């Protein structure tokens, strides 16, 4: 009984070490005893993953980090929302120039021809149109981030 308790204590200590150092896996060997602990990976919130993008592939720096705006638990069903995707590889800008206000924000109404952002590709600033009608419910990318073809930029709730 006491042995079990000391084991539990040891595991608790190890868990503390893992949390402190943000480790996902730890292996401790002493004599015949071996403890392997694994924590769940800090999941990048996968909001309706675009089918053609494998998460494994999307880990590179050029690939934008998943949205941080708590989009994960969005009340809206993802399937009801329209995704505005990047039509090209490049750098995403939410504003027409560094000092300006963003083209659109959460709550903005858009129509097919509303310019929603700029994607810079080969030193050319390409204005990207919404090509959808409705209200913006989520801005998925931070200004200045790189996007690849098909990266979801915004989500729109159709009117």
């Amino acid at each position: 009984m006491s042995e079990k308790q000391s084991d539990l204590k040891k595991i608790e200590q190890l868990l503390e070490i893992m949390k402190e150092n943000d480790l996902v896996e730890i292996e401790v060997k002493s004599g015949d005893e071996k403890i392997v602990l694994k924590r769940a990976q800090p999941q990048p919130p996968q909001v309706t993953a675009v089918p053609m993008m494998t998460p494994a592939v999307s880990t590179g720096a050029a690939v934008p980090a998943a949205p941080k705006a708590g989009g994960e638990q969005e009340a809206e069903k993802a399937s009801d929302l329209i995704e505005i995707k990047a039509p090209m590889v490049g750098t995403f800008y939410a504003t027409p120039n560094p000092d300006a206000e963003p083209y659109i924000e959460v709550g903005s109404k858009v129509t097919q021809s509303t310019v929603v952002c700029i994607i810079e590709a080969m030193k050319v600033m390409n204005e990207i149109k919404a090509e959808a009608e409705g209200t913006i419910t989520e801005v998925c990318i931070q200004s200045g981030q790189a996007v690849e073809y098909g990266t979801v930029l915004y989500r729109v709730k159709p009117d």
Partner: protein
Amino acid sequence: MFSRILIANRGEITLRIIRACHELGIAAIAIYSEADANSPYLELADEAICIGPAVPAKSYLNIPAIISAAEVADVDAIHPGYGFLAENAEFAQICHDCGIKFIGPSVEAMRLLGDKVAARKLAQKANVTVVPGSEGAISDETEALKLAGKLGYPVIIKAAAGGGGRGMRAVHNDISFRQAFAAAQAEAQAAFGNPSVYLEKLIVEPRHVEVQVLADEHGNALHFYERDCSIQRRHQKMIEESPCPVLDERDRNELCESALAIIKEANYTNAATVEFLLDKNKNFYFIEVNTRIQVEHPVTEMVTGHDLIKWQLRIASGEKMKLSQRDIKHSGCAIECRINAEDPKNNFSPCPGTITRYIPPGGPAVRIDTHVYQGYTVSPNYDSMICKLIVHRPNRAEAIETTKRALSEFIIEPLKTTIPACLDILSHNLFVKGTVDTGFIERNF
């Protein structure tokens, strides 16, 4: 040396380049189309960027998208692989203008050797024999007839704008010449919108022999011996080997020196393949220079022990080849079989689909270069080549036996592949004897 490069290609050659990069400590950035999104080789890249949909014109041939990806990924250089943009001088120029090193020759050398007429003139200047023929287009029938008599029949009439075997017509005497000449002009006009044709002596039953060359940016050019690629169907190579089974030491040396002469004349840098036709009397005629790494480069890697992709990266980064020709040794025999998702029984028509069972061969002397795996779907959008099997043995007879053994272990189901066709060829007595030419498959299968 570069710290980061982008690979502007897909499939097995991208994987091959990723491997070379990692051995040299270079970060490899892959690009991919939506059709390739699930390919595991992308996970081996340090980053992977989706650049467009499946259609090559919108992804792997999309220059703005590729350059944009290169800028986003902040790379030093782009390796174009083979196919797609590898021989596109405009792409090389754009890379240069954007301050990105193109891993390949200079734009000038690419333009020069990409022009068939200019390349032919260059070879003549380097004292290398070219296929005898008209210098440029010929439009007057009487003049053409006179030239045909001088060259000696059979001759071949080719569309100036043609390529890859299209718009060609073989003629065997004066009587058929007149008729064929007019027809060839009409055909060229219809197919290419340009009636220009030119004449060439038809080399009867030639072998296709090519020389691998590397040249650095400090004036050193070296050859890495020849490859025999006579086993072709519809001008597509199926089996390649080194050495060429019919060349003796003197002929081989002359061939390789000729290739070097052309490369030096062109002020060429990086990897090139100089292609020749070899006739029954061991006369060789220059055809063209491929200004890129080739599919069959592993054959040369096996017999010389040199990693050609690593050399490409080193040379492009400005490194000097600290080698002399004497340091490059040829050892044994290597054979490569291209495994294509094609149905040999149905005129080699492409056979896309999902691989449900994949068991590659192994054991001594076997190398597999592939990006496929069990569960992989062969996309109808791209080349049907899914794997290269390369075998290296001390002599040709043993190499053939090992290749046959490896091919018979190979399981790729349920797709039809060229594995049975390769096995048939390797067992054919003419192949075993080494007496084949580029018409071998058409005549025997």
